[in-house]
């Protein structure tokens, strides 16, 4: 099937069938990535701009690699918010990019809704690589692909997202996507970092990590940013670890095989301990591998690709 929209701005409103198509296609691209020459000519002649207004290493590399594996021409436009403060508005940047006649913009921006604004302004397809505290759809897609790969299903699973839900675009995209695929989704974290009326998104709030661990099949552990302490939302990262840190001891008390995800980068010893992050239940590195396949899948389908990618042979 083809995607309904020519953009991927978020998973809010994306159907089960579309998410299914993206994941199926991603699995077939994962096979391509295991070939001796892991490259296909699918997007040859297409131009993709990676427009990153926020620092990013893994997401940008992952997109770039996906684009190269699809044989697209890529341009990287990284800018710090300081150069934006110097005067160039987002609108001006967008006009410049549009004049270059490109096919895709992959955008990371600190303001929620910035890619939606971009999508209203240009003809190219827009892929949201993270907007403010709103959505990060390809991250959620790769998370779901990783869960599917490890546990063979998503429907009916109990997935708990742990940490700073308020400021997390990963959390929102996971909530929207997982709910659409029929998972039960919980959130767990300090009350100051749980967004108001989050239950309206159809999730359960776990005030204590022990309750979450007693029920979860999957934990998606979010990075705790040190800024939150300065903002008065957390007394200390030390106390965070005491109350919510994913430690081996806590995992052992549950007697359950809980699959552990983390979108990275990890603060070892804060939200998760090293022996858990590197332990047998962790799928953190699978997430990184799957990220490339998912982004290839998204770009392929947005470019008009239909259904499963069956491979176009090696070059």
């Amino acid at each position, binding site marked *: 099937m083809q995607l309904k929209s020519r953009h991927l701005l978020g998973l809010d409103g994306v159907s089960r069938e579309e998410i299914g198509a993206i994941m199926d296609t991603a699995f077939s691209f994962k096979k391509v990535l295991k070939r001796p020459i892991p490259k296909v000519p699918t997007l040859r002649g297409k131009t993709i701009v990676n427009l990153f207004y926020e620092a990013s290493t893994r997401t940008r590399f992952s997109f770039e690699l996906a684009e190269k594996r699809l044989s697209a021409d890529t341009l990287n436009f990284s800018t710090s918010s300081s150069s934006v403060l110097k005067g160039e508005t987002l609108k001006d940047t967008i006009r410049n990019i549009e004049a270059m006649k490109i096919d895709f913009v992959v955008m990371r921006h600190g303001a929620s*809704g910035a890619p939606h604004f971009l999508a209203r302004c240009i003809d190219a397809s827009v892929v949201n690589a993270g907007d*403010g*505290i709103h959505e990060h759809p390809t991250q959620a897609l790769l998370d779901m692909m990783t869960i599917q790969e490890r546990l063979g299903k998503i429907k009916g699973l109990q997935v708990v997202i742990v940490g700073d839900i308020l400021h997390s675009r990963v959390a929102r995209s996971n909530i929207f996507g997982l709910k659409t695929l029929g998972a039960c989704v919980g959130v767990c974290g300090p009350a100051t970092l749980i967004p108001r009326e989050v239950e309206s998104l159809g999730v359960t709030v776990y005030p204590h990590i022990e309750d979450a661990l007693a029920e979860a099949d999957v934990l998606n552990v979010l990075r705790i940013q040190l800024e939150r302490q300065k903002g008065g939302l957390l007394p200390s990262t030390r106390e965070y670890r005491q109350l919510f840190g994913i430690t081996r001891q806590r995992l052992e008390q549950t007697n359950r095989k809980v699959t552990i995800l983390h979108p990275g980068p990890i603060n070892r010893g804060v939200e998760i301990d090293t022996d858990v992050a590197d332990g047998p239940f962790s799928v953190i590195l699978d997430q990184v591998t799957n990220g490339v396949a998912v982004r290839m899948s998204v770009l392929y389908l947005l470019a008009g690709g239909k259904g499963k990618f069956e491979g176009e042979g090696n070059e």
Partner: protein
Amino acid sequence: MNSQNQNKAAKESSLCLKGGRLVGAGDKDQQADIWIRDGVIQGIGEAPCDFKGRNIDCRGKIIIPGLFDMHVHLREPGFEDKETIQSGADAAMAGGFTGLACMPNTQPVIDNRAQIEFIRRQARDHIVDVHPIGAVSKGLNGKELTEMGDMAGAGAVAFSDDGKPVERSGLLKNALEYSRMLGRPVIDHCEDLTLSESGGMNEGAESTRLGLKGIPSISEDVMVARDLLVAEYTDGPLHIAHVSTAGSVRLIREAKARGVKVTAETCPHYLVLTEEAVREYNTRAKMKPPLRTEKDRKALVQGIQDGTLDVIATDHAPHTIDDKDTEFDSAAFGIIGLETALGVILTRLVQEKIIDIRQLVEKMSLNPRRILGLDLPGFKKGLKANFTVLDPEKPWVVNANEFLSRARNTPFNGWKLNGKAVGVVNGTGIWWNG
């Protein structure tokens, strides 16, 4: 009659409005002619057959005391790219207003006699009466009181640091004591900045879904509660600007019942829109305080009905296209309202029988003038002519590109409304677009 430019007012020394339905304070409605010479009402009833002058057929129209908007940002001096005194007053005229009060958060701030005189001089010849509001604190610094007495003497009708709250309770106490002596109200923008922080919309289900930082309703309620306590203690004349929450309505209602000297306003957008208007990151629905929930909206409507809220004002806040055509977090707060207020209120409140036209006159014409200590217009021989003529059910579609305001930042663009002003008369000035 339509030959004159619909964007310009004219002068008329002798004028007769024929056969309109007159709705004013207290009086029974009547259908009558009003004839006017040199800006003064000569009579009401059946115009003398020897009347010479311009006759305007007002049959089917409603004539009310001229509308007054007590919360307008004209942006001049300092932000003339957004609006000027001329363009803002023109917009008021086209929206059916004969008077307005403008906020002092300009550059420089309207915080001394010279600035008050500047505003009045710029607006002197306009058909719309422009009344400046002086700042409470010098340069809106939130610390030192301005020369409120000197400004009142020069024509300041009220004092406000609008755009910002009067944060220090001590300053508010002094301002209310001092303004009580002057007989002018202090208008407060109630916002606890430590609660609203960098929020851009109401905090709740919608902000959670959109990933936008929220402004909790308590950021307003907390400040309203404090203001009411300070007003009660000082017995100073407090007016609360742009009420947006159910909590504020409840607090004001309770305070009024206790006899606290307080008045309050809300705006058309809080009466007809909710936070849902922000979906798709619509920066034309971004303002402070933010659009709230349906529960708040209903409480505001009730507050208008039961008199807890005295005034409907627009908080006309012009911005350039660039200020608004950007990512939501960076977009300026505020929307314009002068040219849509009457149509929105007629369509959504009067025609829905939530208020009647007489209440509209109270909230949009008489109460604001009462609060600011200005003469009340009416239908009586010897009074200065000051009317708005409405075509109460005329269908029209809001087209921001036709606004006389320099700004286009309205959430109502494209709305189908019924009822608008077709004319205003103020002294010898007349604008007619019938």
